[in-house]
């Protein structure tokens, strides 16, 4: 097919000219389609933008009919929204994925070793690799986690590691999510939708399945049950229907065939964990929790929490149940600790990091702070404790007033912030939802990737992950809470 024509026939299927020049994942700088995308591009061109937009609308209707939604915080209607879905798939070639997979497993293992170490001897601190005050000063450090030894030494059962692809086409780690990462249900639902929208394309391409994730997750959870339990009972703990990720909690419990419990369904008796069933109390061996540490156990954490169950920490300490992820794993995904992850990988595994990270400056250091504050408009500033894209200031795009405010916040609590150079997230052709000359328009939009890594008796990685796309032109924020959408991610098999 004529690549040049492809570039001009469909607006958006071409390299963007924005600064700094990001990588276009479908086309090279000359506008030629990348080899792994050639068949998909040919298919999309044959389909045409009008038909493609129809497929997008059909997908939206299917999500609505199936009730695949997320809740929006602060929405008084208790509003349910559809996570916007773009029908143009994102393609990852087999060799690229093989490298990524190895890097992701390496990273998850190192982060897990770090958490285990921190809540035991903290040898990495004694050896001076990671500064002590960074750990004890971390809002995610939990004293209660010391003395709880999860079976197999698995603290991080589920990790969601956010990757961005640079202009050099390498995937970089943007941040780690090792508390209660969400989004995997969309990966599976997106694929189910795509197999109905473009069945012949998927079949022809040998796309790796994502359908096995719930089985992988259940296997990992069963593997970390307290020893000596032949057939462990696993349950998923949700904060309830008002949580933004409630659909995912329903989805995963349904797919794994386990109970979806709320705190009030649970009770601790004699240092054992039970759920209240129609026919009496039933023992729970592994609890996959989707609520934050602070709400888990009113005896140890926030006393006003109605979401957890009193006595859970004591049950864990007695070794009578396993919590996934373990208490206190957030100490490893702190954005300041992130700067030390390459050193961490070397320290625990004796290997150099397979996945590069984004250059990161810790503003707690006075010299670094001075340098960064001098050119604040060149950096992206992130609060260390927050997630979901909240509180991020993008220097090159911020107003003077926003920069002044950021400066004030940094000076008030320098340890609470990091700064990174603006990373040119790769772009991908995406339906914009607008029309040009009566035809649905396509344009380049920034994307990231959240793959999911599971640690149990052995590591398992879901092929691909959640591709999030910033639907607003030029926007670098892909979070669903901030106007992001998603794409299906196709890892091609050899």
């Amino acid at each position, binding site marked *: 097919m004529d690549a040049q024509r492809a570039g001009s026939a469909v607006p958006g299927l071409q390299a963007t000219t924005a600064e700094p020049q990001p990588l276009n994942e479908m086309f090279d700088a000359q506008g030629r389609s990348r080899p792994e995308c050639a068949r998909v591009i040919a298919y999309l061109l044959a389909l045409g933008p009008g038909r493609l937009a129809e497929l997008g609308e059909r997908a939206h209707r299917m999500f609505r009919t199936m009730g695949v939604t997320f809740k929006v915080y602060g929405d008084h209607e208790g509003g349910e929204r559809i996570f916007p879905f773009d029908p143009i798939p994102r393609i990852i070639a087999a060799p690229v994925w093989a490298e990524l997979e190895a890097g992701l497993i390496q990273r998850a293992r190192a982060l897990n070793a770090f958490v285990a170490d921190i809540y035991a001897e903290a040898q990495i601190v004694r050896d001076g690799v990671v500064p002590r005050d960074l750990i004890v000063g971390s809002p995610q450090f939990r004293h209660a986690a010391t003395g709880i030894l999860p079976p197999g030494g698995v603290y991080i059962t589920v990790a969601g590691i956010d990757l961005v692809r640079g202009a050099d086409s390498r995937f970089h780690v943007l941040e780690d999510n090792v508390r209660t990462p969400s989004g995997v249900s969309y990966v599976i639902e997106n694929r189910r939708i795509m197999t109905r929208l473009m069945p012949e394309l998927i079949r022809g391409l040998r796309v790796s399945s994502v359908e096995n994730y719930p089985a992988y997750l259940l296997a990992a959870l069963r593997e970390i049950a307290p020893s000596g339990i032949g057939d462990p009972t696993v349950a998923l703990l949700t904060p309830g229907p008002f949580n933004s990720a409630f659909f995912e909690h329903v989805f995963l419990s349904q797919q794994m065939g386990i109970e979806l419990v709320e705190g*009030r369904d649970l009770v601790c008796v004699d240092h054992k964990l039970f759920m209240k069933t*129609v026919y009496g109390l039933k023992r729970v061996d592994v609890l996959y929790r989707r609520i934050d540490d602070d709400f888990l156990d009113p005896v140890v954490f926030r006393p006003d929490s109605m979401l957890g169950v009193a006595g859970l920490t004591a049950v864990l300490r007695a070794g009578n149940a396993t919590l996934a992820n373990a208490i206190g794993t957030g100490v490893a995904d702190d954005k300041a600790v992130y700067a030390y992850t390459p050193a961490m990988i070397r320290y625990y595994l004796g290997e150099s990091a397979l996945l590069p990270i984004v250059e990161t400056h810790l503003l707690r250091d006075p010299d670094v702070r001075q340098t960064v504050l001098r050119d604040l408009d060149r950096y992206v500033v992130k609060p260390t404790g927050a997630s979901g894209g909240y509180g991020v200031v993008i220097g090159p795009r911020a107003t003077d007033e926003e920069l002044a405010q950021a400066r004030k916040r940094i000076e008030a609590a320098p340890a609470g912030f990091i700064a990174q150079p603006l990373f040119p997230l790769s772009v991908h052709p995406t339906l914009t939802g607008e029309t040009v000359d009566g035809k649905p328009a396509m344009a380049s939009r920034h994307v990231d990737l959240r793959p999911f890594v599971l640690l149990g008796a052995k590591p398992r990685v879901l092929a691909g992950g959640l591709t999030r796309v910033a639907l607003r032109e030029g926007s670098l924020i892909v979070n669903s809470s901030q106007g992001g959408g998603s794409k299906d991610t196709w890892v091609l098999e050899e």
Partner: protein
Amino acid sequence: MLRRIAGSLFWAARYLERAQWRARLVDVNYHLLLEVPPRDADPWEPLVRITAEHDLFAAKHSHAGETAVIDFFVFDREHRSSIRSCIEAVRANLSPLRHLISSELWLAVNRLYLEVQGWSAQTLAAGGVSNFFTELKRHFFMLEGIVAHTMPRDLTYDVIELGTMLERLDNVSRLLDVKYHYLLPRLEDIGGPADLRQWAAVLRSASAFEAFRRCYGNAIRVNRVVAILVFDPEFPRSMRFCIERAAQALERISVRQESSAPSAAAPCAELLAILGRGDADTTIESGLHEFLIDAERRCAQLADRVFDRYMALE
């Protein structure tokens, strides 16, 4: 099954059944009034009395006219038993337990819910009241069919059956009571054409008209209506039928249980006995209204016991 989930399922079943009865009542009353110009000041008034919420109605509407009553019964978000509120409650209760029900049932409930989200007074005006309720009834019958034909006869099904039957018993009783106790209080009207039309409407509300004709003949008399709607062991919307089905569901639930703790069977057995041995003539003679009030009270008591025994968390 978690106790909380059993409770959600029980209430989902009740709200679904309740929505259905609200639709039946409004539909039948609407059509009844089309044919005969109303003589009474407020021919819609009795519908409001059927529900236990006429205080809420009075607070919002000064007069029980057609528009006000239909709005209250169908669309009103503040009215917990409006059809809209009931359907939203069904979905909210089923949402966290999608793993227990067939995907067909979830999709059908979600589709109905999405339709309800688009409802407004204009919906009714645009399509016509008749079409609106015909369409709604189709949804309800489809949901019942999906439950009957896709759900295994396990604990989940038994809890749904229990909720449905207790709610139905309560609704049949209220329907009869309103007609008998509140409509046409003047003795000289009894047996007159207006009286007969109203009894026919009651039968239609309960989908009992054809069954009545077949089993009890053409002449509509109050004792025969009471016979089919209260004591008939075979008609699926009679109070006796409901309590028997509820008792069977309860029995299956308690048999599955391994422990030998006492079940919620006592108030159930009493209701079974009352509805099983009674007859229409004696009941009317000794006071139908008192009989129905008593049955409703026992039914509520039974529901409370069931909830405490199998669903309450504390």
